[in-house]
């Protein structure tokens, strides 16, 4: 089955939505009962214990850096250093990812600094050679 068209990349994580038309986005599931936001679909809200109340909701591409670590030692083959970041998104939802386009230096990274989510083809493929779309954080001007 020869494929003429390049295939659509797969999402790096279940909570990265890639619509047929339109821009990719991070998708949360929000509990209508208590407002807790999760990454990925779920039957029961683990905050309030109610079932059937978690509905998909798009998360913002804007947020602020909550905390980070600069990773200098990782598994073999993984490029270091990189910045592992926890980001609180505007309107709710907390996501972990690499913070890029910043020096991996504590002097250059401020907790609380404004960041944005950007989407790129991941530099890794799976065993079948499929491409993946991933997300990163980068600094933004407030």
């Amino acid at each position, binding site marked *: 089955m020869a494929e003429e068209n390049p295939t659509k990349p*797969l999402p*790096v*994580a279940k909570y990265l939505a890639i619509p047929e038309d339109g821009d990719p986005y991070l998708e949360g599931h929000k509990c209508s009962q208590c407002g*807790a936001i*999760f*990454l990925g679909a779920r039957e029961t809200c*683990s*905050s309030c214990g109610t079932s059937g109340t978690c509905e998909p909701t798009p998360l913002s591409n804007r947020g602020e850096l*909550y*905390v*980070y*670590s*600069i*990773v*200098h*030692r*990782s*598994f073999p083959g*993984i*490029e*270091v250093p*990189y910045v*592992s*970041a*926890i980001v*609180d998104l505007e309107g709710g939802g*907390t*996501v*972990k*990812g*690499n913070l890029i386009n910043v020096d991996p230096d*504590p002097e250059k990274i401020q*907790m*609380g600094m404004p960041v944005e989510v950007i989407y790129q083809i*991941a*530099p*890794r*493929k*799976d065993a079948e050679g499929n491409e*993946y779309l*991933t*997300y990163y954080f980068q600094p933004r001007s407030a």
Partner: protein
Amino acid sequence: MSDVYVLGIDMIKFGRYPESSVPKLGAEAARLALEDAGMSIQDMEALYSGNLMQAAAMVGQRILQEIGQTGIPVTNSSNACATGATAFREGWTAIKAGIYDTVLVVGVEQLGKAGLLGGGGGGGIPTEGLLGSGLMPAVFAEAGMEHARKYGTTFEQFAKVSVKNHQHSMKNAKSMYQKETPLEMVMGAEMIAYPNTKLMCSVNVDGAAAAVLVSEKKAREVGMDRCVKVSASVLTSDPWTERDLVMPDVNTCTRRAAKAAYEMAGLGPDDLDLVELHDCFATAEILHYENLGLCGEGEAGKCIDNGETAHGGRIPVNVSGGLLSKGHPLGATGVANIYEITTHLRGAAGDRQVEGARVGLAHVIGLGSACGIHILEKVN
């Protein structure tokens, strides 16, 4: 309900034993604890065994194959780094319930020179280093940075934890290392995940620790002299918090466990003479000063600066050397820190004895998360 006492307890020297095996290491600690209790395996009514890396492999039964297959019930526990404390608490629960008078608890792990722990999982492509880090040094670095964000805690303050615990281990022959590490050495060591350098990460080692627990009835029968009372045994899991799906929360479950433990013991943090807490990374120790109520909110940095948690200070923490220097054999850790407390309450800690110690607290965290806290008290 019966009170529960530690009658016998011991640990093997933490280190690397590639020629041994998990059951053999566990058996060695079990024999030491039985000897310390003046009892034999025939006296044991049940075995509670804790091990993580071979959780599916009937470790408790294999220990009995080494020390005596008496046919007693065996419960194998696995609860991440709270595994040992969980096994200990299973034994405590059974005596408390009046089912048994005498049980054996063993915590054991063979890690060898395991590399970085954590991460992995799922299909697709590996996400380590792509979607941040799931490795333990970074996870606990991020937890420490939350403290830095709130209170301005510095890299140097985190590093001082490691200096202190390495200093403490100089007097503990059962510690993996007995090596002084001055501040410049700790801060200048290879950076693993900022702000944790290599010397601020716990050591992956093999180890085992075991305890004989008895009911009040049995304690009176054999004599209370060597008994240490378990005044509180508490286990918690992590309640839902806003960020815990991407940032494991080791604070809330510790705070809840501490509150419950102090209530159960009828004691407060001011009554403690020493604490062994879960310093899996230097950053973690700082968090737990406040989580356990050893100081006020935001005061942990000052606490380490002033030497309040050093041996001879206001509230000595990890006088054994802690996980940072004594080593962290996951499933054994929770029983080993109870051994340390018990040894001081018995006045048998030699050079590193905390003088006049009457009450101590042992704390562990398993990421994912579980928190186990035990408060122990001298009987007389």
